[in-house]
């Protein structure tokens, strides 16, 4: 299949069932909101070594937040509800509670499960915390040095999918960076998906295992241009740079739609091949054939 000059290689992304939650973070202004989001989603690229995969889902205007201030929706994905509960509390406690003017609300009130948030963080108030029940939702007001930290008692958790992806093979690094950024820009307004790696892009695509027994993952040598000619390669003969964009989403259509949009936005001059990465198909429950998703989600 071709998208303009770019070849779409027949391949599939292998993705995994995860649990996710959505946090709504608000703050006094953009500066502090960005600071909170940046901290809360830091060190959250891959569950290979991070506790969660997390990133900004989208910025929220004042009319879409519970308290009428500027906000952001953050998605956090974890292996299990229990691990997610621990990580969310720690991240909010260390990265958002600490950030001036912020508040945190549940962005997934219809989630199939719930994990505590304010229920635990309230103890930081050392007995001076106050709760308010509004409708059927409980909020905690924790006294802090600039007033109060407002946080919802618990947040919803639902089943999501992590590991959708596309791999771009390009003639040179300049074109590869340009294509990768256009993918991230195209996915930014899409609800229900995040790209958790730095700037949304991965340069260190991995394979399962290593010659070193203790390593769970190691560099995907078949896509390393510096190893082409020395080891079997998957790179196009003229490709000298490859990038991967990993996509986590709230459900199967979100991930598939994002992969299709990503591939379309990347295709063009200098991008030789677009494909999807997998681990042989035996690890992940969800398979996203790239050509199939492009047909399901026409541009």
């Amino acid at each position, binding site marked *: 299949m071709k998208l303009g000059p770019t070849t779409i290689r027949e391949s599939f992304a292998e993705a995994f069932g995860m649990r996710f939650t959505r946090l709504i973070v608000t703050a006094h202004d953009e500066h502090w909101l960005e600071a909170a989001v940046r901290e809360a989603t830091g060190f959250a690229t891959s569950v290979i070594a991070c506790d969660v995969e997390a990133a900004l889902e989208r910025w929220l205007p004042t009319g879409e937040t519970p*308290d009428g201030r500027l906000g952001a929706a953050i998605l956090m994905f974890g292996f299990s509800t229990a691990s997610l509960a621990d990580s969310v509390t720690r991240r909010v406690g260390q990265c958002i509670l600490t950030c001036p003017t912020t508040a945190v609300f549940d962005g997934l009130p219809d989630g199939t499960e719930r994990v505590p948030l304010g229920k635990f963080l309230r103890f930081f108030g050392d007995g001076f915390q*106050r709760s*308010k029940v509004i409708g059927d939702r409980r909020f905690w007001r924790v006294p802090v040095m600039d*007033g*109060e930290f407002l946080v919802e008692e618990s947040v919803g958790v639902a089943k999501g999918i992590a590991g959708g992806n596309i791999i771009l093979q390009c003639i040179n690094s300049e074109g590869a960076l340009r294509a990768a950024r256009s993918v991230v820009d195209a996915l930014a307004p899409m609800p229900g998906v995040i790209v958790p790696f730095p700037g949304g892009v991965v340069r260190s695509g991995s394979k399962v295992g290593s010659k070193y027994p203790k390593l769970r993952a190691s560099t995907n040598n078949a896509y390393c241009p510096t190893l082409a000619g020395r080891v079997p390669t998957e790179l196009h003969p003229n490709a000298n740079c490859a990038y991967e964009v990993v996509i986590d989403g709230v459900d199967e259509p979100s991930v598939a739609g994002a992969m299709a949009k990503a591939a379309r936005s990347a295709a063009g001059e200098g991008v030789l091949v677009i494909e999807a990465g997998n681990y042989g198909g035996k690890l992940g429950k969800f398979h996203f054939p790239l050509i199939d998703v492009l047909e399901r989600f026409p541009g």
Partner: protein
Amino acid sequence: MALHLTTRTHWTLPIDLSGELPGLLAPLSPSEVGKRKLLVGREQVDLGEIFSISGSAGDGVVVWEGDLSTAFGIGHLLKEGQVTVRGSVGSYCGSQMKGGSIVVEGSAGTSVGAAMAGGTIHVLGSCGNDVGHDPRRGVGMTGGTIVVDGSAGTHVGRTIRRGTIAVRGSVGEGAVMDAIAGTVIVMGKSGRNAGSGMRRGSLFLLDDAPPEILPTFQRGRSLKPLILSLLLPHLASIGFKIDPSFAHRDMRLYHGDMLSLGLGEIFSVHQGDGE
């Protein structure tokens, strides 16, 4: 179509309507509704003698019309459905209700929403004393929301444990007296002794006039109570709109009552004289 019950004449004796709930009336025909017994004064009277009846409560909606200022207990123990009163009602409207909604298009007597646990009550007129409080049992609200477009009498939210009361007009003395927790918002003037004996809970005074704060409250600092930005949309959803800018105004905080647990708080938009 809602069940409409319209008073045939003006009654001076108290009428007990505490058993006439939408759920009970829903399966009944108008003639069966008319045969239900009401306690009027000390006598039992057929409901049909007092009210003309039309429609059905099959959709969970009951509309009372006429002068019901001697009727007490409308919506008592209401769990679901909607009760509308096109006129004024007597005491204990919505007492101990757990869900559903009541709209009183006139005024209400004493103890509106007494000891209610859930649901909403919207009084378009004014209320008597003890909004949310049941003085017979000494019990306050444990949930739900009461909004009053007019004024309210004394002891609004007395012994409230959970839930929200909002009054657009003024309130008498002793608001949130002996409160255990909960939230009361007063947009008009508040009488003396507000917060007397309160253990926890919040009283928001949104009138620009200087409040009369008991000396057993300690003056705190100024802050923007962000929680108001969540409360105001909740109140607006049941027809009680407050200028959203209140959520972003600095308010003076008072802690008390120090003669009690002292974890209560009064927020006042009036900043006081400073320190």
